[in-house]
């Protein structure tokens, strides 16, 4: 995953290459790429937007609960999302963490009836990243 945060206005972008996901079972990985995420057509999942009410006062070293509002694009389908996250400036580096769910239905990832029990209808996502200043 790669991410960027503009500390002047709270603009951010996250990008996850779909091909970066590896599975224990080769066929699962093939189906993930071929049938569900269609990674050849849509190689990246992205989340781009701004942190609501961005304030430079958050650079005080304490953790801050914030709302990240923007467009989440998975499987080529953009959905407007507001995701709760935690921001903290630690030793000159911004640390971002968040947990959220991506319902597959929202992104037109269709799961056939016969395998519905085996495949989660919602993808849990955990984000933990540390950004280097540049």
């Amino acid at each position: 995953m790669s991410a960027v945060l503009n500390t002047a206005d709270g603009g951010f972008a996250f990008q996850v290459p779909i091909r970066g996901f590896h599975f224990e079972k080769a066929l699962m990985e093939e189906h993930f790429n071929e049938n569900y995420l269609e990674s050849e057509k849509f190689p990246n999942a992205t989340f781009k937007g701004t942190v609501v009410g961005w304030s430079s006062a958050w650079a005080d070293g304490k953790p801050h609960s914030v709302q990240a509002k923007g467009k989440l694009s998975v499987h080529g389908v953009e959905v407007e999302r507001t995701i709760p996250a935690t921001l903290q400036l630690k030793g000159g580096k911004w640390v971002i963490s968040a947990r959220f769910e991506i319902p597959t239905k929202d992104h037109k990832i269709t799961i056939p009836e016969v395998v519905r029990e085996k495949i989660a209808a919602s993808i849990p996502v955990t984000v933990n990243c540390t950004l280097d200043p540049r």
Partner: protein
Amino acid sequence: MRRTWHAGLVAALCCGSTAIAQPDLLDVLNEGVEAPTVPVSATFKDTRVINVQSNETAASGVLHFVIAHRFGRLNEGAYALWGLDNASMKMSFDYGLTDRLQVGVGRSTLGKTYEASAKLRLLRQTTGGRAFPFSLTLFSSAFCTGTRWPDPERTNYFTSRLSFVHQAVFARKVSDDLSVVLVPSMTHRNLVSTPDVAHDVYTVGLGGRYKLTSRLSLNGELHVFAAGRTPDMKPSASIGCDIETGGHVFQLHLTNSSGMFESAFLTQTAGTWGAGDIYFGFNLSRVFTVRERNRD
């Protein structure tokens, strides 16, 4: 004069828009990052197009089991339920030693034939940074008939039971939906019927698949002779579809070849589509993950 003025205005507008636009943070993210080279996957759903090998192999640690049937000829008519009264069968087990190398064994009822094969992905089609246009997979197999000698009184040699096939599978995933293969093959028969029949038969196969949905595709293949053909050999031609359901792939097809192994369908196809010598059949494959991979 007017023309110049217009051109000037257009230029000014362009400059204006670039100056105002904020840099897209996603572009900032990808600045200076080279596009990764990604191997093209799932050129075909299975290790075979119909009869002929595709470029695919069983993944590392995966056992790929295939059970295949060819029923009788459609032109046997209603009495034999258009061929469904008879069936010829093949079982095969292929195992991926690595993601590039597969070894396999099989047994067909036709000629009670045993086979042992090796299949190697030599080149892989890639996209991205260092793109490469096609995949090349090599396939070699040895076949041994198991039928009793027709004349046990004469001197029969074990080696007379053997035949060998070597193939180069050139494959290209043209688009998400369309994949094609070109397969030159060399078949060597240790025993041929008369001294003037060539031991080696060279064929060139062309095959492909077109995906109708993400789990259903139309497939076809045709083999033509380049050298070593005798008049009784007919080109093998097949059409069918792949239906994928989780760990299974069902391949249903119509073909003029009853043999399901290379030396049979390449050199022993005797009937033609025109005469109605068409066999309905299927390959049913199932994968078993014997050894799980590191997810790195």
